[in-house]
């Protein structure tokens, strides 16, 4: 790993840590969106009283930014968990199993993989009560095939390794060999990369839908997406109310993607 990659790893790691910290703190911050409105303070530039300034309704942007992490944090974690747990298990199973079962599961995964993700998520939102949790749940399911495929390839390539043969000959439990020796010890870098990606994807979809309005987080509850949406009515000399959340979105998504990739690379180098 080069110097540049190592720097990227620590920087992106910092972003990930910061987002996780904010996500944990946010629910503890008392915030009543209606009470925060104060038209006298509308569009104040960043200052000591309001670190990131205020928006058109005089609400403090820093607090809304922190509170906005609530919109995607838990849903993102849930989606990542769903995709790596279920994807990891189906991947390990299809890498090990043979016969009709394997064919059937692979077929189902392929079918799931052909669904256009964003369109399918919006479709589900139109037929059920839209919520970020629902979006995240569907996103988690939709990423199962991606995770399962990389894990299956890994399991298949490891199956012919001498030490796996030796474990079988010693009579080590096949379930343990599969789950512990292969899935856990060998595949964790892959799982980290996928989890970070899915988390980033949920943030992307949540902010996108909140920006567009109908299916995302509704005003006055803050989301980075509906904060950016203010761009439509803001005067051009007051860019901070949308610029700051937009920067947060870009930084967080790229931070998570970079961290996933670089952490996995470090892991894979250590594994070898």
């Amino acid at each position, binding site marked *: 790993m080069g110097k540049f990659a190592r720097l990227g790893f620590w920087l992106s790691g910092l972003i990930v840590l910061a987002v996780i910290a904010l996500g944990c703190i946010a629910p503890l911050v008392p915030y009543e969106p209606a009470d925060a409105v104060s038209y006298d303070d509308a569009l104040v530039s960043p200052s000591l009283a309001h670190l990131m300034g205020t928006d058109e309704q005089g609400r403090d942007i820093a607090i809304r930014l922190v509170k906005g992490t609530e919109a995607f944090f838990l849903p993102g974690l849930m989606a990542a968990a769903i995709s790596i747990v279920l994807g990891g298990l189906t991947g390990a199973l299809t890498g090990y199993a*043979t*016969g009709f079962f394997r064919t059937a599961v692979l077929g189902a995964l392929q079918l799931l993989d052909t669904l256009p993700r964003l369109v399918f998520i919006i479709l589900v939102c139109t037929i059920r009560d839209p919520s970020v949790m629902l979006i995240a749940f569907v996103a988690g399911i939709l990423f199962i095939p991606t995770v399962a495929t990389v894990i299956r390839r890994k399991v298949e390539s490891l199956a012919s*390794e*001498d*030490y796996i*043969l*030796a*474990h*079988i*000959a*010693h*009579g*080590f439990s*096949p379930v343990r060999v599969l789950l512990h*020796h292969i899935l856990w*010890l*060998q595949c964790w870098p892959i799982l980290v990369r996928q989890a970070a990606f899915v988390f980033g994807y949920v943030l992307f979809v949540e902010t996108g839908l909140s920006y567009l309005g109908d299916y995302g987080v509704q005003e006055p509850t803050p989301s980075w997406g509906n904060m950016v949406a203010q761009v439509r009515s803001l005067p051009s000399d007051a860019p901070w109310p949308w610029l700051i959340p937009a920067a947060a979105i870009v930084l967080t998504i790229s931070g998570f993607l970079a961290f996933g990739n670089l952490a996995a690379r470090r892991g894979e180098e250590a*594994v070898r």
Partner: protein
Amino acid sequence: MSEPMLTVRDLVIEFDTQAGRRRVVDGVSFSVQPGEVLGILGESGSGKTLSTLAVLGLIPGRPGVVSGEIELTLDGVRHKLLETLPAVVTRSAQGEYRKDDRRWGRMVNRQMRPLWGRAMTAVFQNPKQSLDPLMTIGAQLDESVRLAHPELARPDVRARSLDWLSRVKLHNPPRVHASYAHELSGGMCQRAMIAIALAREPRLLVADEPTTGLDTTVRQEIVELFHELLAAERRAMMYISHDIREVLFLAREVIVMRAGKIVEVATADDLRTGTGVRHPYTRTLLQAADLPVGEAA
């Protein structure tokens, strides 16, 4: 002589290659007596490794084992390992074999699972690749001890593991216990591998060219270790090697394989002293090792 613990009869193994189907093991029969070491001698590609992997049930389909019988007797119970084979092999009018790979794989797994480890296990060549690169030696050894003695508590498992490490003459057992395979030398890995295999307490140990790729001095130490832990304790073992001296040192009975067939069955004593009539290939091997070659056939 008592009843053999392992009997292999007319084992035939074939594989499909680009040049068509090739018979790599051709009607091999042998047996292992309880507490005896059987030496299997032969060059690379003679089918010696495949014959023993077949005994362990570790040969995948396509077509792999196509006929034969393997019988394992444990505590008076007879296990017929290839009993289900005829059910998955069909023969066409032209005498061509077809084998249902998947059914075969399932049947082998079901039948072998209770036998793997408890009845027999193996020490392979390439000790470094035979150890899990991501688990400490200790973690793997502990697993082996735990499987052999599920009743033991955690500290006792560790104590027994450390004891095994010192029995295979590894210095500083606690350090080795906490090491990964890549931190140890090839010889140390093979000692650890032997400890893991023996800690499982198998009735029959299959050692498949365990000294290949090791330094000459280390090879000798490993062979002596096998002698001490198996031959001397009268545990049954199949010792596969292409080195006639190793085989003669360890085994009581020796079979010599070439091109998928057994060309010679003899006692180690006869081979050492040059008694009896010898196959030309065996004579070449004996000659190469500066041993009396015996009479020509």
